[in-house]
């Protein structure tokens, strides 16, 4: 489908557009449900007045201070993981190229655990996670580099780094004192519980900068899925696009892990789910981000409500929901 306005024209796939609209609708519904339901039900009209600071004080406290930061963090972190996963799966031309498989998320965990053990504040833990992610990415990239980085080499080196870092993480937990180990363990499953605006803001800022950048490199990245030579022949500066994409992908995975811990599976599953639903060739960045946001907030809602009053960490649910859905979709695949 082509949209032409004067000299401008944009190509849109109707199905991808429809899927995006549906994902936004589901995201909205999940957000409303997350704000409204729980131990203390806030009726929907009260949510709106609470957001604008005119509702009953109790609703204002619950929505504004407790539920809204959590759900917003969930949406942003989910989008960041989805986008990061899409970027790396596209670059490596491999679903296993997700940041949670090639060591980036594990590296962020190592940084986070070290910060927990050092008795750091929430801010230090976030900083440690981001630093761990970036350092791991640089090392994996450098080790895989051989006059350019090939997708499968990045995946293989990354899987090696992942295994090593998971071992390091386990070792750090056994060496830590019991309280630190428990705290680090909770953080390691990935959780949105107790997230405030100070968790949401860094992710929001990162997305604000990186989303336009991603929009800019989305088309060249799609061409690069046909191979470097094919893309270069079309006039694409492959190495430059790849450098920008890797930077954006690492930062997104880093800030997302910093905010919510290493939530597994969103980065792997969101792009694959989005691709199958939109039936578009290759990985699509926009729908992967939307899918990530919906997947994480829906999983978090389920984690809070399904076994209430027991609260599960969201990481447990993302794996369960995303995994089940992905297996169902794969069964329907023609290939």
């Amino acid at each position, binding site marked *: 489908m*082509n949209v*032409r306005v004067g*000299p*401008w*024209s*944009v*190509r849109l796939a109707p199905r991808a557009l429809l899927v995006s609209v549906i994902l936004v609708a589901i995201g909205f519904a999940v957000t409303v449900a997350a704000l409204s339901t729980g131990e203390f039900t806030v009726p929907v009209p009260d949510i709106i007045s609470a957001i604008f600071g005119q509702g009953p004080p109790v609703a204002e406290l619950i929505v504004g201070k407790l539920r809204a930061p959590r759900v917003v963090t969930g949406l942003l972190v989910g989008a960041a993981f989805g986008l990061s996963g899409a970027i790396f799966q596209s670059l490596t*031309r491999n679903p296993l190229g997700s940041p949670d498989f090639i060591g980036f998320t594990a590296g962020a965990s190592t940084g986070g655990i070290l910060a927990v053990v050092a008795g750091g504040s929430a801010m230090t833990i976030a900083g440690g996670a981001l630093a761990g992610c970036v350092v791991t990415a640089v090392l994996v990239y450098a080790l895989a580099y051989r*006059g350019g980085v090939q997708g499968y080499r990045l995946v293989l080196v990354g899987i090696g780094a992942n295994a090593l870092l998971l071992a390091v993480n386990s070792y750090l937990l056994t060496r830590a004192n019991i309280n630190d180990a428990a705290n680090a363990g909770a953080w390691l499953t990935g959780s949105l519980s107790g997230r405030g605006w100070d968790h949401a803001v860094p992710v929001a800022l990162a997305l604000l900068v990186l989303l336009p950048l991603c929009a*800019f490199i989305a*088309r060249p990245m*799609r*061409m690069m*899925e*046909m*191979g470097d*030579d*094919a893309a*270069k*022949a*079309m*006039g*694409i*500066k492959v190495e430059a696009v790849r450098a920008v994409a890797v930077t954006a992908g690492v930062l997104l995975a880093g800030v997302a892990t910093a905010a919510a811990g290493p939530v597994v599976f969103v980065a792997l599953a969101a792009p694959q789910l989005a*691709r199958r639903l939109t*039936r*578009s*060739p*290759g990985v699509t960045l926009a729908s992967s981000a939307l899918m990530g946001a919906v997947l994480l907030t829906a999983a978090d809602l389920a984690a809070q409500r399904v076994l209430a009053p027991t609260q599960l960490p969201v990481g447990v649910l993302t794996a369960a929901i995303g995994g089940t859905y992905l297996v169902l979709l794969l069964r329907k695949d023609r*290939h």
Partner: protein
Amino acid sequence: MDCRLSGTGLTLAYDQRVVATGLNVTIPDESFTVIIGPNACGKSTLLRALARMLKPKSGAVHLDGDVITSLPSKEVARRLGLLPQSSIVPDGITVADLVARGRYPHQKLMRQWSKADEAAVSEAMRATDVAELADRIVDELSGGQRQRVWLAMALAQETPILLLDEPTTFLDISHQIEVLDLCADLHEQGRTMVAVLHDLNQACRYATHLIVMRGGAIVAEGDPTEIVTSELVREVFELRCEIIQDPQSGTPLIVPEARRRVPASS
């Protein structure tokens, strides 16, 4: 002799492994140039250098008088197209969508699909005879059909010069001829075609200009009927042979020496 594309003093290398030194090459305008030679003679490397896929260690490739790497990459892509040896078919892409990707160098972020794009894509699909496959999934096509689709993508790019890296490899004989006939048609319509081929007989039949390489050097170049001799074939390919006239095209036909004959029937 006019030539838009040429290389002077090219030293070509992958990392530290030098493939060729001091190569000078010119591609005559509106020729169907075929580069040929034994395995590892540097023919694909030379093509890749001409297509700016490989940066020469020294020397330079010129396009329309400018050093090719000094021109904006997208600008080059509107003048010179390349069909790489192997490209990856994106999962689940249709023929029409893949061919449309050839329009990338003519598009911008805010001008993604003009009427010229549409015309170029339908013309490319018509020329390569893939129009009726437009809605088919590329993965599900036969090898010959798929190669025609890749060619259609390169055609949609609408470049006056088109380079092809072993376009017939992995195809059976009928599809090889089909692809080469298509290339000959494109050449007749006024395009400059440059192809790396393996089969010497096919090269002689289709090339208007033949470049013969061995060990990273150009051994002979020119009209195949003038330069292809049994001495040249023996020197370049280490093959004893007899050259006869191709009964179909009148071009040289290489007949390798036989070690045994079928007994003559009485």
